[in-house]
């Protein structure tokens, strides 16, 4: 089985936000929930870089470790998913996540955040694949259709890569070698405890 990962090549990312709206479109994600977002570092200064970030589907995911109700599970493709039936909306995963991935439909006043929502790597949830129940709770299941996450597929400059970690690391490595520079595989060290050695 593949070990699915995301890699954002910040030297290509132009903060066009296609990944964000593609995700909203694909899963009909409501206002206020941002399964994916683009953060710009050094905004307005030379050296500015933008990075598209969502759940990185960590190795030994911290969200799963701190979840008090074991609602997370990792698929055979190493995608970290969760069950909204089990989730109690406590917010611990948000505290543990280095990437700010968990989102809540409400803001947590009086603790009523609602069920956590996050990037599913377009892989749905625990419900049966491609069912309406799965779609309504988690959004589309592109992996089950043999497709990759829509954010990466629609990335305007092909900055955001999704797929088997080894393959996307190769692509990135090749790019860096060819062009002679690279700002790094953002988040890899934190998420996968490894980085793409050039």
């Amino acid at each position, binding site marked *: 089985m593949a070990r699915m990962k995301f890699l954002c090549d910040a030297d290509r990312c132009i903060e066009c936000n296609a990944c964000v709206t*593609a995700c909203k479109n694909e*899963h009909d994600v*409501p206002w206020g929930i941002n399964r994916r977002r683009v953060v710009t570092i050094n905004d*307005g200064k030379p050296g*500015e870089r933008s990075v598209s970030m969502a759940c990185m589907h960590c190795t030994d995911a911290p969200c799963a470790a701190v979840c008090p109700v074991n609602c997370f599970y990792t698929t055979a493709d190493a995608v970290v998913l969760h069950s909204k039936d089990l989730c109690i909306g406590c917010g611990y995963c948000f505290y543990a996540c280095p990437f700010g991935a968990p989102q809540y439909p*409400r803001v947590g006043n009086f603790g009523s955040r609602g*069920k956590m*929502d996050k990037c599913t790597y377009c892989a749905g949830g625990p419900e049966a694949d491609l069912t309406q129940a799965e*779609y309504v709770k988690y959004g589309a299941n592109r992996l089950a259709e043999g497709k990759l996450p829509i954010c990466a597929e629609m990335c305007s400059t092909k900055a955001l890569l999704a797929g088997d970690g080894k393959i996307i690391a190769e692509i990135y490595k090749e790019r860096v070698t060819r062009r002679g520079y690279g700002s790094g595989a953002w988040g890899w060290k934190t998420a996968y405890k490894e980085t793409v050695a050039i």
Partner: protein
Amino acid sequence: MLIKRRDAAARSPRLQAVAAGLASGALDRRTFLKRSGLTAGGVVAIGASLGSVRKAEAIAAHDHSKSAERKMNMCTHCSVGCSIVGEVQNGVWVGQEPAWDSPINRGTHCAKGAASRELVFGDRRLKYPLKLVNGQWQRISWDQAINEVGDKMMEIRGKSGADSVYMLGSAKFTNEAAYLFRKFGAFWGTNSVDHQARICHSTTVAGVANTWGYGAQTNSYNDIRKAKTIVFMGSNAAEAHPVSLQHILTGKETNRANVIVFDPRFTRTAAHATEFVRFRGGTDIAVIWGMMWHIFQNGWEDKEFIRQRVDGMEQIRAEVAKWTPDEVQRVTGIPGEQLKKVAETFAKQRPSTFIWCMGGTQHTVGTANVRAYCNLLLATGNVGAEGTGANIFRGHTNVQGATDLGLDIGTLPLYYGLVEGGWRHWARVWGVPYDYFVSRFDEVPAKGGRPARTAKQNMETPGIPSTRWFDAVTHKPDDVDQKDNVKAMFVFGHGGNTIPRMPDSVKALEMLDLLVVADPHPTTFAALSNRKNGTYLLPICTNFETDGSRTASNRSIQWGEKFVEPIFESKDDYETLYLLAKKLGFADQMFKNYKMVGNKPVPEDILREINRGGFSTGYSGQSPERIKAHMANQGKFDVVTLRAPANEASIGGDYYGLPWPCWGKPEIKHPGTHILYNTNLHVKDGGGTFRARFGVVREEKQADGTARQVSMLADGSFSQGSALTDGYPEFTFGLFKKLGWDSDLTAAEVEQITAIGGNNPDTVGWATDLSGGIIRVCLDKGVLPYGNAKARAVAYNLPDPVPVHREPIYTPRTDLVAKYPTRPDGRQFRMANIGETFQKRALEQGVAKQFPIILTSGRLVEYEGGGEETRSNKWLAELQQDMFVEINPADASERNIRDGQFVWVSGPEGNARARVKALVTERVGKGVAFMPFHFAGWFQGADQRGNYPKGTDPIVLGESVNTVTTYGYDPVTGMHEGKVTLCQIRAA
């Protein structure tokens, strides 16, 4: 169910209310999903509370357990021409998939493209025709709307004349709708038919066409992959044309290409450049001449190219000599060494391409800027080959096509001039007597000391540019050179906040007798003023609800399929124009060449008519069948050359989208022209030469006072396989006879030429020969029908034939005005253009002291144009919720302005001011402020949300930058000054 994060709402209660509104009332159908208590889910079709509106289909979005129909159309938000693949279930657009096969976008999108589906189930669309009655919006039927609008138009025509109805069309039209709209203007009897190209690349079209023949991007987005040096000047492609960056960044990486960005602002594009050159806005000519100073000084120019293919470069050289590094630095702020480095890179590390956008065009010297850019390309031999060229990135999905098809106050479709020959050409194509059109135009009485015009003279006089429509309403009748002032605005798909001097347009809106807005959204036009009566809103569907072709910036034509039927009561442009034409009494004649399905003409038939008449620009070979074959075989085109393998059935050897010129009739299967003026190819492979558009010889005064004849034809340069191995003029039947080529024409072709020519068939040229014979034979002979000339470094017919630097009207550098004043006052396009008066007044009043900050404007990636459509799109609106002004930290601290607080930005005219949020950033230099221009709905601090018809207000509203922008118009096209004015900023 939309849920708003409280923290956002806390700081933006206005928006919270809006977001809450989304989840209530008519939209309650969404709440059925609430029962899940979960976050994902949605509804596609629109609610049942709308009476006769299309029946609600409250189904949850995309049912993945069932298959969906795949359809293809284009993104409407810029000119890159990204294909969009829609998945349709039960007549509802339920999903978007990457369009992998498109050689243009290869599956990708920007935020806008990826959010396109929202446009077709957006709750904020106009749902049915509305009429403003005593300040209240009243729902009316289409019949009533068409009847009342038609009656009012006839009444205005009777009282004030045809020219009093201003027809503002759209770059969002399909080619067919744009053409139909221009044709509608001709049948109505006015040349005041304009669209967004006026405020976008009108100066480009004028400048480029006057240099080498055609007003369009010479190469393509894809071709930039081959460039070794890529210069952006006044273009922030990363935000305005994001998908183009795919090709540019790939080129940058694979070729280790130099990417040089000239901009007053450190843009997102600059962030990916290898060199960023900050300069003072409005000094483009000084910058270019400064680069060319180094080029000429060091002999880096391409001498052979200039000798063979450029006319008048010596005169440029003389002007350039004045621009020493010191003077350039004094005027532009660019250090001499940096500019020298950049000039050397551009001249030596070839192929080099030059990309510009609104930063170059939206100036009082817009056309001159463009010609300076062209001169840089010509001097370095960077035109007409792979990886080179003037890569002009246009702004709307079909702004190129709409320009080509004549939504322009100065041309007929496909750049046939407003001259008798042009009118007769189209009258022939349309099958309507020429005299009919003459009869439709007003006779203009003598006014203001100007002579009267006959109807024929009036029909050959350019109309009023869209940048001045409000002046044509409010100015004294004597000042407006037509029968009467503008009394009615007829706006099809155009924002009301994209043109400077909005306080003046508010006044004009309130004076209009009739305002018709035909658009998917009410637009700023509907909400901006305090009109009480006489406004009609006609709901028009988006391009996803209709069929038709569109021309991307690189001249490729793509066919878009209708995804779903028009939602609500909306209609497409074709049907709306038909209903109006019928009401006005000329539908039978206007639509007689088209098959009608109900009230809708078949767009394929309209395109076929365009093909029949579109020889001048090579719009003749792109039959609907050929374009559709391209769409069906997208994957077979090469991503760099855009060419399909020769052995492919039906598309073999074609360039993707048959980029114009696609010579001759479709049957001769010209492949289209990927790169203009490319002498390295045979014309049958898309090769070309510079166009012989301006005559064969010119007179040049010698020092001794005598005149000398200078040939303007190419010198020893020709396209591959050409039967003529030197320059040659454009071809006419007469020239054919001289060359003995008339024998290659068929009898039928000669017969048609003779019929067209009447008494003088020798004058029938390649462009008016409806038989296509002259072009066919030219292709066989390997020559370009339009001739083979030199490009003109000097455009003798324009103001400032050699471009000269002129300070913006509102310049902070008052010390430079005496040496570089703006052009003298004059009259163009039926209006006075008194920039000089404004500049003098500003100097006298010390405006630069009171308003010390340069204000410039530009795009955000999430929004487009006036932004009504994109600000109504919840997926996009969420990403940019506030109008802002970028201000340098030094300027902010001088004014005690904190990041995120509200400030007043005030402009130098009419106490105009705008209340926006401050974004303190080093992105802009000290003394420079930037505002995006997509916002509207607040006007000088007042929230106008209540002015929109209920439920159609965009989610995000904000002040328009054009509330504070100012006077200034390019003399060649009427382009406004949108990029340099002055302002003051104070904490609110």
